[in-house]
């Protein structure tokens, strides 16, 4: 069974595809946008923008450090550079360039990391971005966005271009469930309550939002009413929605396709522990590197399934 199928969702575009099409479509309305690519434009889908606007696209080769600092220079001269690579190479290889050429000077660079999470599958752990959210969140002033489906990715892409400041947009490789229709309202820093519920809250983003919805569908059958929140922005975090969820449902499970350290779970727990301590459980990759394999098999093996979320809900309700 595909992710989201249990909740009646159809499989749609991968978030990287939705981003690529959105960027291409927005190119005319946003004349300051410039793409800087580290020779993976056909994976990150910036190639579609590059074909439409060749004078505003630069492929600087397999050189992520230079790529990010060039983007910093473009931003310092008034451009809105979009610099895209695999999440792991962008955040891990060019971390200091993001720090010094983007975050510290506070420049308007749009960092886009595709192939995030373990669901990239067969290429294996060297290509999996599972530290990226923690690394991006560690730097002052960067907004960190993890959209869950094609529609919200499209909206996130435009919101990112409108926002003046450094931004990290995290994208996935596989096709994912369609959660939103065209009425979706997307605002950076404002979470979306995707399903109402009063017994527990599942906070998720990216691929794990559809997994969380499947879990809530299963829980409904078991008589547990689970609220599901799309926390698409990890930074700045929607603290009000977290506090409200803690007060109204008394327990929180956080699900994300990231290491335990530094991700959405840590961010949410920092808010609840300060404001509204409630029992919490976490569904994530833990503290390990994964392996090669098919995406579904990997998600199963590393515990990123709707059953894992259901189990976490049961644990958190017992406390």
């Amino acid at each position, binding site marked *: 069974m595909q992710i989201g199928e249990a909740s009646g969702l159809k499989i749609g575009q991968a978030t990287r595809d939705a981003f690529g099409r959105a960027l291409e479509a927005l190119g005319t309305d946003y004349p300051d946008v*410039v793409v*800087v690519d580290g020779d993976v434009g056909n994976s990150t889908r910036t190639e579609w923008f590059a074909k439409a606007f060749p*004078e*505003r696209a*630069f492929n*600087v*080769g397999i*050189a992520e*450090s*230079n790529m*990010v*600092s*060039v*983007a*910093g*220079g*473009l*931003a*310092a*001269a*008034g*451009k809105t*550079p979009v610099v895209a690579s695999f999440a792991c190479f962008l955040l891990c290889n060019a971390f*200091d*360039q993001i*720090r*010094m*050429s983007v975050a*510290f*000077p*506070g420049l308007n660079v749009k960092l886009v990391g595709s192939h995030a999470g373990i669901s990239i599958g067969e290429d294996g752990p060297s290509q999996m971005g599972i530290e990226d959210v923690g690394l991006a969140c560690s730097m002052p002033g960067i907004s960190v966005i993890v959209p869950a489906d094609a529609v919200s990715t499209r909206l996130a892409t435009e919101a990112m271009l409108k926002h003046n400041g450094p931004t990290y947009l995290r994208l996935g490789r596989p096709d994912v469930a369609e959660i939103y229709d065209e009425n979706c309202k997307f605002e950076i820093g404002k979470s979306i309550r995707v399903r109402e519920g009063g017994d527990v809250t599942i906070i998720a983003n990216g691929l794990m939002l559809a997994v969380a919805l499947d879990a809530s569908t299963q829980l409904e059958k078991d008589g547990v009413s689970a609220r599901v929140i799309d926390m698409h922005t990890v930074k700045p975090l929607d603290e009000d929605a977290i506090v409200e969820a803690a007060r109204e449902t008394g327990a929180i499970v956080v699900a994300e396709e990231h290491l335990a350290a530094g991700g959405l779970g840590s961010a949410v727990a920092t808010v609840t522990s300060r404001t509204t301590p409630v029992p919490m459980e976490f569904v994530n990759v833990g503290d390990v590197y994964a392996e090669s394999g098919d995406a579904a098999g990997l998600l199963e093996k590393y515990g990123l399934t709707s059953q894992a979320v259901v189990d976490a809900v049961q644990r958190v309700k017992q406390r």
Partner: protein
Amino acid sequence: MAVQATKLIIDELKEMATRLRRHIVNMTTAAGSGHPSSSMSAVEVVAALYFGGFLRIDSQNPTDPDRDRFILSKGHAVPVLYAAMAESGYFSVEETLTLRKLGSPLEGHPNMRRLPGIEASTGSLGQGLSIGLGQALAARIDGRDSRVFVMTGDGEMGEGQVWEALAAAGKYRTANLTLIVDQNGYQQTGAAKDVLDQTPFAERIAPFGWHTQTINGNDIEEVLAALETATGVTDQPTAIVSETKKGFGILPVMEEAGDLNFHGKPLSPELAEKALKLLV
């Protein structure tokens, strides 16, 4: 291009170089820390850029989109930049004495967020040429005539990112980008040729598609001629390998102190007094 460059005659430029050196000594000794010797080697190039008719900037309008840019990638040498900026009117000479002090925008390394006229926040070596390339490409997209000058150190050339940027600038033939390598021969722990020899620079840079020149970078006339040549090249990026001496201008004082590198330390008030007597 509305912005005009300041152009002094040779004798005035030599006087200006001496003034910049005095400011460097004064501000680093007042701060009690900093990199005066790394700043001294770069004085002639910085003086020629700011006051020799090359850098089209306006301290009263530091964000003019048509301005030229100077990026000090070897950010630890920022006293030479503050000295030139003070003489250009970005702030007063007195304010240079707040260098490195709490509350002062004249930080230990350049911070563009706090100080108008700083074109890149540097201090993590190796990034300035890439940033300059981005600015040069932005000017090209906008059809602006502005030019970007970047100064790296010779030790800094150990950073692989510089070579990434050299290759990319060669690919895009950014003729509005000029790199100056301040080859002062020393880096933190010793002579550059002993730590990690990256020479010969010109011979290594040229194959990336760059126009190169090698000069005595402490000779103001050679510097002016090299900048004149570089800014006249229209079809490729240009590099000037500027052979200098670390601490040029205060070498006798460094010799007396028994340290010809003198990296990352200020002159004591006594040595500063001796240095200022040399700088007249």
